[in-house]
């Protein structure tokens, strides 16, 4: 009941202003422009029982209008007192369906991720962003309806043994997300130099089939875009319900992203 209410709230509040789909905790079905490079530096962490944090360096590149790739490396002190390099992941997203008009579009993409990691695995959650070695494949659909931008995804995760011989607690998981966002400022565009402020509400869930382990988090986020190129994301995720042993509950996220357009032309 509480969840339905929150989903309703997410949909309603996003109808108020101009839709935005540069989601903070999820990826939209839309891709980056071809030949554009995005560079992300990110820090995520939690404060209880101790302050622990993970840093991510991610490069994103638009190969053509339908295909984009990401490559990431991770370092954290989640599993030992000091920061250490943990592993990396590669991600590809292929947009295969687009219906566009001026104020409305619907796009669908498939995505896949592969990760290698050397951490010990005490958690029930499969996390390819720094915790587990594994594969992920899924589908994402994004709908822009006048002023509402909604995006949802479903994916399957498969964990393998981490390097150094650590075995996963769980081998299979289903992940799902629902995101909405809107433009808070500017009310009227005058140029690229204007700072944009977007706010988002995202739902992030996972369930481990056959194991009665699942959670659903809500992650509000605020985003600043400077000069139409530098993006700053701030988010905090917290569980609506939680029946899974994991690191990701009550995590903050701080991210800087810089975009370079028309490389290698």
């Amino acid at each position: 009941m509480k969840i339905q209410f929150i989903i309703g709230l997410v949909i309603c509040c996003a109808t108020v202003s101009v839709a935005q789909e540069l989601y903070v905790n999820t990826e939209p079905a839309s891709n980056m422009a071809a030949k554009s490079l995005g560079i992300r530096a990110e820090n995520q962490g939690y404060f209880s029982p101790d302050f622990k944090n993970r840093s991510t360096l991610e490069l994103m590149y638009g190969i053509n209008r339908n295909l984009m790739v990401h490559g990431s490396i991770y370092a954290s002190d989640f599993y030992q007192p000091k920061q250490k390099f943990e592993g990396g992941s590669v991600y590809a997203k292929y947009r295969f369906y687009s219906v566009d008009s001026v104020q409305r579009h619907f796009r669908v993409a498939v995505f896949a991720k592969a990760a290698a990691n050397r951490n010990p695995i005490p958690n029930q959650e499969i996390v390819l962003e720094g915790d587990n070695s594994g594969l992920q494949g899924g589908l994402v659909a994004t709908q822009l309806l006048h002023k509402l931008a909604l995006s949802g995804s479903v994916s399957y995760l498969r964990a393998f043994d981490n390097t150094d011989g650590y075995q996963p607690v769980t081998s299979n998981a289903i992940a799902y997300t629902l995101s909405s966002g809107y433009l808070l400022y500017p009310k009227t565009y005058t140029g690229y130099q204007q700072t944009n402020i977007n706010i988002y509400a995202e739902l992030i869930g996972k369930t481990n089939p056959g194991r009665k382990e699942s959670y659903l988090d809500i992650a509000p986020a605020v985003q600043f875009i400077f000069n139409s190129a530098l993006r700053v994301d701030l988010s905090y995720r917290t569980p609506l319900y939680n029946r899974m042993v994991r690191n990701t509950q009550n995590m903050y996220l701080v991210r800087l992203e810089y975009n370079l357009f028309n490389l290698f032309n």
Partner: protein
Amino acid sequence: MKSIKILIALLAVTITAKAQFIKAEMQVSGLTCAICAKATEKSLRTLPFISDIKPDLNRNVFVISFKPNATVNLAQMSKKVKSAGFFVNQLKATVDFDKVKIANNSFAMGGDTYRLVNNAGKDLNGLLPVTIVNKGFAPASVAKKYNAPAVGNAPGSVYYLAI
């Protein structure tokens, strides 16, 4: 006197040969963020015949000026927008009809052929905006209405224009 006439005739031929789009207004669908608009504009700016682009982000419109005497390739403009992840919803380009010769509701310009689909024999003079209705330049329903196919990148293409 005769030589002056020849000179005028030659001049007229030269002007006709250099007839080209003056400017264009391009509406791009799906542009909901400033980063996307900037990426799309930067992609368009790599085309050698574009001299300037002024964005109107509230209307999802780019006002495009062309370099004088450069050959404008509309198909390449559509391709650049697509490569940025978006689609041209409407392209209105201004033609100087004093400089083109219309026969059978068609005229040639910059190596391409332009067919007027709804002119019905009216006299066209001076600077007038035309809307390209081919697939890739207009919503699918509009392209279908005029039975206007997609346009290739090579010169010698046939564009369908509504006026």
